[in-house]
């Protein structure tokens, strides 16, 4: 019980102590609580931070790897595109070069070919020159032809005029109209008058030709639009009809054969034949087709003058008649043949009157 009394005396102390202790503990509790909380929160924070750091580290690794992967894929894609673009650009440039060359060539060859055009224009100039020259020549030639034809016609006309005016020829006593003594010499008409031959009868060939010419002229006249002549009044008197007189006047001479043959007809015929032979006969022996055939032909002698070994000398070297002394006992050759009986019955076969023969 002492302890109890002690203890009860101490109770107040204890109570005070307890209270003090409680108060200090309370104060300390708050402080310590706060400190504990602080420490705990710090620790929790550290733990969380460590955890987060850990998570972050791993998340970064994952993201880093992923981003690298996908960026490399994109980069490869971009790279390919850039490569493709660069290639196309290169191709385009090369294609432009080819096209440029080709277009230049094509245009220069087909659309506007300078050298072809130049050649063409030069050739054209030459052709023009040539055509101009040829046409000039042709024109001159035609002109000459026409002039020549006109001159020939003129000459023929003047000749015919001279034929008709042959009486104007000058004589020794009396100079003609065209041969004036006051001039130096005779004029050309005078020369023509001197040259003129009278109009004679024509030979048969010439007659045929002129008849043919007349017929052609008549045909052309008919084709001109002329009506036939109307029967005019007949002149009084014993005159023949006008056409009859005209026909008679135009009628050519019809000479007899004796008159028409020339006096030297025989000689002329001979000459003609000779000249024909001379000109026509080219080959003298027309039946030798191969000229050298007969040269190399082997000589075939007569049967009678030849033996197997040599030619017999009889007939060429000696004859019977020359050496009659050797023939004394030999018979003569038969010179008479047997008759052929063809004509034996000639007179007798048919009639009695044949006997006259």
């Amino acid at each position, binding site marked *: 019980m002492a302890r109890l009394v002690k203890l009860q005396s101490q109770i107040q102390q204890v109570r005070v102590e307890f209270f003090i202790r409680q108060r200090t503990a309370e104060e300390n509790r708050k402080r310590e609580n706060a400190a504990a909380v602080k420490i705990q929160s710090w620790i929790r924070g550290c733990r969380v931070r460590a955890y987060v750091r850990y998570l972050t580290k791993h998340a970064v690794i994952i993201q880093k790897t992923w981003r690298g992967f996908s960026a490399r894929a994109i980069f490869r894609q971009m790279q390919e595109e850039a490569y493709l673009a660069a290639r196309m650009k290169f191709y385009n440039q090369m294609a432009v070069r080819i096209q440029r060359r080709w277009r230049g060539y094509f245009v220069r060859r087909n659309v506007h070919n300078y050298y072809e055009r130049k050649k063409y224009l030069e050739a054209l100039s030459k052709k023009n020159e040539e*055509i*101009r020259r040829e*046409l000039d020549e042709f024109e001159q030639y035609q002109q000459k032809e026409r002039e020549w034809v006109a001159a020939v016609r003129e000459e023929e006309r003047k000749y015919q005029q001279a034929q008709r005016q042959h009486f104007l020829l000058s004589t020794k006593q009396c100079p003609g109209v065209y041969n004036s003594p006051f001039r130096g010499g005779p004029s050309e008409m005078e020369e023509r008058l001197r040259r003129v031959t009278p109009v004679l009868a024509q030979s048969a060939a010439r007659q045929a030709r002129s008849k043919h010419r007349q017929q052609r002229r008549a045909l052309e006249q008919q084709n001109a639009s002329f009506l036939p002549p109307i029967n005019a009044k007949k002149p009084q008197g014993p005159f023949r009809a006008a056409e009859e007189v005209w026909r008679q006047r135009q009628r050519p001479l019809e000479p007899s054969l004796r008159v028409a043959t020339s006096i030297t007809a025989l000689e002329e015929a001979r000459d003609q034949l000779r000249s024909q032979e001379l000109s026509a006969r080219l080959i003298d022996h027309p039946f030798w087709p191969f000229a050298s055939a007969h040269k190399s032909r082997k000589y075939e002698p007569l049967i009678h003058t030849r033996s197997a070994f040599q030619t017999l000398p009889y007939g060429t070297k000696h004859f019977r008649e020359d050496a009659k002394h050797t023939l004394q006992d030999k018979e003569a050759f038969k010179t008479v043949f047997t008759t052929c009986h063809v004509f034996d019955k000639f007179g007798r076969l048919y009639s009695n009157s044949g006997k006259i023969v």
Partner: protein
Amino acid sequence: MSQRQVLQVFESYQKSRTQFVQTVAELATRPQNIETLQNAGVMSLLRPLLLDVVPTIQQTAALALGRLANYNDDLAEAIVKGDILPQLVYSLAEQNRFYKKAAAFVLRAVARHSPELAQAVVDCGALEALVISLEEFDPGVKEAAAWALGYIARHNGELSQAVVDAGAVPLLVLCIQEPEIALKRIAASALSDIAKHSPELAQTVVDTGAIAHLAQMILNPDAKLKRQVFSALSQISKHSVDLAELVVEAEIFPAVLACLRDPDEYVRKNVTTLMREIAKHTPELSQMIVNSGGVAAVIDYLGDCKGATRLPGIMMLGYVAAHAENLAMAVILSKGVPQLAICLSEESEDHVKAATAWSLGQIGRHTPEHARAVAGVNVLPKLLVLYMDMESSEDLQVKAKKALKSILQKCTHLPALEPLLYDAPSNILKHVVCQFSKVIPHDSKARRLFVTSGGLKKVQEIKADSGSPLQEYINSINNCYPEEIVRYYSPGYSETLLERVEKYQPA
């Protein structure tokens, strides 16, 4: 009265009839008698003589009628009204060849005056009778019938079609092959008259094989025949490309060029017409003509002839040059432009001048080279004069203006453009100044020449509405020069200088 006296009366009547008819026929050959004859009533007297017993009187009466109808279309109408034509048509079938010739002559003389008279002739049934007489043996009858058919077909397309429908064309082609020259001439002329109206008629003529026969006669020595042959070929080829190609395939080139030197001027003219009709269709045909040397020959022909006969040659050059620029260059190379310039200055007729202006325009419109060649012969001032001249016809003015415009739009040869600065009206001046404004900015020598020749001064004097193309060209020219020079040449500069002199106060 005895029988002989009775017969004598008839004989004297016949003699007087014969004499009358012969004298009338002879008088009708002279134009001065025909009026008198008409007033004396010769038609009514000749008409019963056509039915006379004696064939000679019939023929001479027909001949006289033909000569009268030939002279005047009143007389031809009188014949138509007098119902003479059916009788003639009937006798064409029946009578002898002299009467046929005379009857065909009358039909031709009536039909030649006008389409109505030709229609009247056709209405009488003359076509069948004429076609039948084309089959006769006598070439004179054929010639008269072909001539009448040609004159009928000449007027218009319907009459030609009627002639073709009567079956005349194959017979005409046969007539062309006959040996007589006169018949060939008339047949060729008839074919030409038929073919000229329309492509179908020309095709009908071609289908009977006419081209080959016509082409064979090109080098015939007779000049009148050649005229008709070339006329026929040109009438055929003018309608379409196919016909022209058919004509060309007959191998007429280059033989045709030889006929360009024929002494007869109508032959030459018809040859040139043929070449023009062929050249106008396509560039290939023109090229063929150029390659065979035709252009040079035509240019020489232009130098030889005068007057309206030059027209086909000028037009041919224009057509050739119009197709392509190398053909135009070929024309220039063959010395065509100086020749055309000579034609322009020598000719007096407006239509020839218009054609020349057109041709020059066609030559010069392709490239600056061509325009320079054309401007080099001093032809631009002449064209300007033609355009400005009040007396030239409207067609000539229009053509000259078009030619001038087309040449100016390509011309870069400044010395040739300078004279135009002074006289031209504003619509031409616009083109001239435009050309200057194109050339001057790039060529320093030209700039100098422009100043020294007085062109700049003239340009300053031009009044133009601001904002108009002319003003723009003037501005672009002025921009090529320093400002002082432009001010120096502007009008009224001397006055401004003198004013400054007046105002100046000496120090």
